[in-house]
């Protein structure tokens, strides 16, 4: 029955049309070629005004899509620049987007900010006598703004360079302080 000798099939080959002793084509020992020669030539493409017009429409559409804001490139958006989402949300007024639940603020950031503020306060107290009261107020407002405006990259580099608990600018001798311009105090920083 099953497995009795090699080449035993489960059905009689006469039925499907292969006669006894007939030459079967040799079995292939490799995969079929990637571009097999075609038995019949393919039908030529449709030509004519309609086909050409649709071709032009297709290529123009493709070109136009690349210029629209919907074509998203992998570069990360810069700070302060409105991305596509904001544009769309303003247009639609959230009618089409469901507001996601707000992101849970990352915990590790908190200690850094606290240390920063403490160090700032210490520095301003140091400079209190030299600059006087009016400058002190500007300085307090400006310093946290300046520090935050530097960006996260500045943060990380300073903090993790030597793996100390102290921010590296703590060791500065205060010569650079006050060198920046006093304009644009009202500039909002995000």
């Amino acid at each position, binding site marked *: 029955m099953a497995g009795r000798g090699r080449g035993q099939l489960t059905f009689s080959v006469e039925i499907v049309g292969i006669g006894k002793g007939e030459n079967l084509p040799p079995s292939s020992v490799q995969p079929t070629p990637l571009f097999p020669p075609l038995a019949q030539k393919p039908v030529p*493409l449709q030509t004519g005004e309609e086909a050409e017009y649709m071709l032009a429409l297709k290529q123009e559409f493709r070109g136009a899509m690349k210029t629209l804001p919907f074509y*998203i490139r992998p570069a*990360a958006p810069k700070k302060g620049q409105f991305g596509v989402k904001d544009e769309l949300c303003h247009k639609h007024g959230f009618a089409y987007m469901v507001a996601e639940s707000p992101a849970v603020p990352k915990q590790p950031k908190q200690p850094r900010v606290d240390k920063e503020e403490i160090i700032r306060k210490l520095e301003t107290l140091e400079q209190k006598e030299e600059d006087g009261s009016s400058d002190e107020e500007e300085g307090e407002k400006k310093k946290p703004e300046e520090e935050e405006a530097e960006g996260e990259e500045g943060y990380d580099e300073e903090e993790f360079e030597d793996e100390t608990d102290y921010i590296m600018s703590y060791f500065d001798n205060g010569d650079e302080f006050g060198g920046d311009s006093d304009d644009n105090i009202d500039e909002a920083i995000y």
Partner: protein
Amino acid sequence: MTAQEVRLCGLLLQEHFGNVVEKVGTHLIRSGVLTLRALAHETKLPLDLVKKSLCVLVQHGMCTFGAGRRGPAGPVEYRINCERVFHMLRYPRYIYTAKSLYGDTGELIVEEILQRGQMTMSSTVKTVADRLTHNMPEGQSMDYSEVVSAFSQLVETHFLQRCPLASAGSSSSGAVDTPLPVATQPTEPESHPDCYKLPYINLTGQGKRRRSSEDGEADQCAAKKCGDDRIYWQVNFQRFHLHFRDQAIISAVSCKLDQSSSEIVRTMLRMSEVTTPAHAAFTQALSANEIFRALLSSYNIARPILDQYLSLLVDDPMEFVGKTGDSGGGMYVVNLHRALANLARATLESVVQERFGSRSARIFRLLLRKRHLEQKQVEDFAMIPAKEAKDMLYKLLSENLVQLQEIPKTPDYAPSRTFYLYTVNQLPTARLLLQHSYKTVGNLMERRLYETKENKRLLEKSQRIEAILASLQATGAEAAQLTEVEEMITVPERQQLESLRHHINKLDSSENQVDETIFLLKSYINSTQASL
């Protein structure tokens, strides 16, 4: 979703929206439904890029969102609508149809809405008027009212429809009061009662010629409230598909019979456009009197001639038109589903003929008509010598276009006492060919991308030179300078560019043509499912 479908979706998304959206979209197709956080985590993309991609997809109607598995209190889940992604392949056809029906204005309206997914009526009108004005000779400009009338016509014939809103209540409070629809059941646009109602907008003026970029800013600031805020319009793809189906039937009738019979069928389809629901198997019954009255006088068909044509159409083996009664001179219907089945069958036969030859096609047609045949019977009916018939049958069998059916005489399936019959099933074969078509389009797109990438340097060079030439011409340079710049591209490079353009055009045309086959097979498959 089959592997070929996912691959094609990815290529289409990449072509139109870039790599980021492609990555997000492909992952979402493979996973089914996902929340935003899960999607960002699994694709390892930054959260804001994932959000942007989802926004783009929602804007174009390719992604739907709704309450997730944990109910309305849990995070929102997103899913991709693959059919909508495949429609992107057919955009040129939609635009061309709009042009043929409503002229250049209609064409630009549909093109703008397809490019942007959804638009308000006022912004569409302004953009289209500006574009038309740009192409007009100096001094003329396109009036808004003309564009508005073209837009209204598109809405009246249901080619454009309002977008369904996600939540009925205003979401300015932040809390969504009305429960969101579950992600698996998106709201149908047609369920909205005002789906095709035009808003009253106060819009007068003319298109502006864009002279310099600062005008754009002024336009945006002066974007007056036109009274149709929050009413967005999208293209009604189903309506376009019905139109394509009707066109296919009419051209089939005109090929099989003659021009006049195709005009009669066209009239019948036009009359039953509004009364026939989308998935109906046949149109409403029309009496011969009604058809005669509705026939355009330019066709010049007399009443007795009409009756003869109708009886010819009814007797035709393709069964496009059927007779359902005798009142009013005879009640006639167009058999939509049967017509689609016949068109699909013709497509299958044509594919077999072009790939395997006319004798194999004869065997294929025989099996389609006679359902089940034994080996011997195939040879006899097809009048083909045994050896060749065997060879052809096995080739078709290996390609899965023909199946072998075992009919046992005894319960133990003994080989000597079993019938082995060859058969062709139209529906599974149509599905197989549809998957082949998706694979074909995927291959064509990949080859086109490959060709573009191989010659990127050359293409960029030619673009730069064109830009230089344009700027030189604008500033009024002499002919000698222009020829000098043109000669920067050598002759063999020019030839290479020319052949590249030729190849890319050929590949693009092929995609358009394969899409016609895809449309036909998909319509047939959907029609069989609708009737089940």
